[in-house]
C-alpha cells in the first residue's frame, strides 16, 4: 500500500516508518524537521503540513492510507502555536486525505484525553467524555484534535477513520511526555499521592499503529500494552530517586534544582491516574504487547542511567 505518514521525523514516526517499509509498503513522509539518515525507500518531503506544498504532496502521491502523527505533545511550544499545529494540522490532514481519495486515515492521539481527577475511574472506556480540560487547560488542543478526528467518522462515512488513544511511550529512545518527566536523576512527586502510570514500550506502540493499518479498523480505540504501575515503582525501576514534595512546595520547586519544568495543570497528572481499557483494540486487531512493564522500564533505565 502507499502510506503517507505526517510527523515522520519524530522518534515514533521513524519507528512506524521503518516497520512499514520492512513490511513492503511504499512510504511518503511529511515533516518540517529534516530526517538526515532516512532509509532509502522513503520519499521525504520537508514541508509544513499546513502549507500549500503539503497539499501537493497528498495530490501527487495518492496515498491509500494516511497516518497522522504530527501533533505536538510536549508543552514547551506556546499554546496558540500548539493549537494551530494540533487542531489546524488535523483538519488539513482529513481534508487533504479526502481530496486525494485516501481510503484510511489514522489519527494518533493520547490517553491523556480522558484527564486525571480525584473522582475519575481506572480503565477508561472509549465512550467516556474528555475531562482533561477543566484541570489541565494546556491539553485542550489535543482534546479538540481528537474530537475533530472523531467527527470524520460521521462526516466522511466512505473514509475509514481510526482514532487511537495511546498510553505514554517508554523505551530506549527516551521520547515522550513521561520519558521526559523522569529524565533527571531526581523525580519530584506530590507527597501523599502515588498515581498509576500507564505506558508501553515504543516498539509496541509502533507495532500497534502498524496493526491498525493492516486490520483497517474503523472507530475510536484506546491502545495500551502491559498493566500500569505506580509512579513510585516507575521511579525506582528506572533507577531514579523519588523526591516527594508537599503540594505547595511542588509548584515552587518545578524547573529548579534540576527538576523538570511542567505547566501548573500537569500537577493533576502527577496526583491522579489515567488508565485506559484497551479490550476493544485487542479484540479488533489481536494486538499483544511484546515487552512488559518491567522490560520497558529496564530499557529506559539502561539507555538513560540516572547520573
Amino acid at each position, binding site marked *: 500500500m502507499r502510506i503517507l505518514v505526517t510527523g515522520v521525523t519524530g522518534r515514533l514516526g521513524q519507528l512506524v516508518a521503518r516497520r512499514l517499509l520492512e513490511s513492503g509498503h511504499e512510504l511518503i513522509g511529511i515533516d518540517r524537521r529534516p530526517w538526515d539518515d532516512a532509509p532509502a525507500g522513503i520519499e521525504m518531503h520537508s514541508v509544513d503540513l499546513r502549507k500549500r506544498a503539503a497539499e501537493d504532496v497528498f495530490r501527487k502521491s495518492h496515498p491509500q492510507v494516511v497516518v497522522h502523527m504530527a501533533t505536538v505533545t510536549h508543552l514547551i511550544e506556546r499554546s496558540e502555536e500548539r493549537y494551530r499545529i494540533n487542531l489546524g494540522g488535523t483538519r488539513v490532514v482529513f481534508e487533504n486525505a479526502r481530496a486525494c481519495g485516501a481510503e484510511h486515515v489514522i489519527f494518533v492521539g493520547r490517553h491523556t484525553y480522558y484527564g486525571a481527577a480525584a473522582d475519575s475511574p481506572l480503565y477508561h472506556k472509549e465512550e467516556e467524555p474528555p475531562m482533561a480540560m477543566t484541570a489541565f487547560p494546556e491539553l485542550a488542543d489535543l482534546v479538540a484534535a481528537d474530537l475533530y478526528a472523531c467527527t470524520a467518522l460521521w462526516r466522511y462515512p466512505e473514509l475509514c477513520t481510526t482514532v487511537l488513544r495511546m498510553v505514554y511511550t517508554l523505551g530506549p529512545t527516551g521520547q515522550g511526555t513521561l520519558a521526559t518527566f523522569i529524565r533527571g536523576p531526581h523525580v519530584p512527586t506530590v507527597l501523599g499521592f502515588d498515581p498509576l502510570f500507564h505506558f508501553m514500550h515504543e516498539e509496541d506502540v509502533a507495532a500497534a499503529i502498524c496493526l491498525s493499518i493492516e486490520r483497517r479498523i474503523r472507530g475510536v480505540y484506546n491502545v495500551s500494552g502491559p*498493566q500500569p504501575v505506580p509512579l513510585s515503582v516507575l521511579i525506582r525501576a528506572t533507577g531514579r530517586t523519588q523526591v516527594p514534595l508537599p503540594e505547595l512546595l511542588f509548584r515552587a520547586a518545578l524547573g529548579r534544582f534540576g527538576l523538570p519544568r511542567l505547566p501548573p495543570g500537569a500537577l493533576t497528572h502527577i496526583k491522579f491516574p489515567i488508565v485506559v481499557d484497551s479490550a476493544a483494540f485487542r479484540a479488533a486487531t489481536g494486538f499483544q504487547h511484546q515487552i512488559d512493564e518491567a522490560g520497558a522500564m529496564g530499557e529506559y533505565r539502561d539507555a538513560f542511567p540516572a547520573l
Partner: protein
Amino acid sequence: MSLLIDPAIAARVDRVELPFNRFGVDPYGVSKKHVAQFMTLLHYLYHHYFTVGLVGIEHVPARGRGMLVGNHSGGVAVDGAMVLASCFFDRDPPRLGQAMAEKFIARFPFASLWSNRTGQFTGLPEQAAHLLDDERLLVVFPEGARGTAKLYSDRNSLVHFGSGFVRLAMKTQTPIIPFGFVGGGEAVPTIANAYGLGKLLGVPYVPITPWLAPVPLPVRVELTYGEPMMFSGTGNEEDEVINGYVDQVKQRIGELMKEGQRRKSGEALARPRGTEEWA
C-alpha cells in the same frame, strides 16, 4: 520486609489470588506491601482490640465476583474494616474485599495513596463494573454517607438504600451476599455530626463523641453474612421492579442485624475470635 508488616500476614497476602506483577502490584495498583501493612493493622483491631463475633463467612464466595452488601452501623468505618478483615483472615484462600469509598478520600494526600494501594476505590459505577468483570469481591454500603452519619440512637436502624448496586449486580450477574453489622455505634457513639467543621476540612462531616474525637472503643461487634442472593435480569428494569429487589436485600440485612443483636445480648454464642493461628 518493613517493620510494620507481620511476616505471617505477608505470607497470607501471598495467597490472595490477585494477578500481582513482579513488583507486587496488580492491574488496579493494589500493592502487596500496602495490603500487608493494612492487614497488620486490621489484625490488631479484628483479633485484639474489638471482640468480633462472626457467622456465615462461608457465604462469601471463595473465588469469582461477588458483592458484599450491608449496613453502616454509625461512627467511622469500623464496619467496613471488620468486613475486609473477615474476608482476609477467615476465608481460605484469603480474599481482598474492595470497598466502594466516598469521593472525598481520593482528594487527600496519603488517604488517596493508601486507599488506592489497598484496592479501596472511589465508588463510581464504571469502577465497580470493571472490578466485577475482573472477578473481584466488592463491599458496598447502599446507605452511603447517610449511613455512617447515624447517631448512637439510630445505630441499629437502616436509612434509605440506593438502588444502583442491584442494577449493577443484575447487569454483571453478580451474587449479592448480604451482611448485617452490629456494634459500630457502640464503638463510636456519635452524639452529633459537625457538618460545618467537615466542610472546612473538605469531608462530609466530623462525628462528635462524648470524648469529642471519633476514636473507637474496644467493644463487641457482630458480623453476620447471609446466603447469596441472585436476581436475574438486565439491570435496565423499571424502578418498581428494582426497588422490590432492593427491599428484599434491605429486609434480609435487617434480619441479619437482628441475629447479630441477639448474639450480642448473649442469647447465642458466636465463634470466639483470636484463634490459635492469629492469637
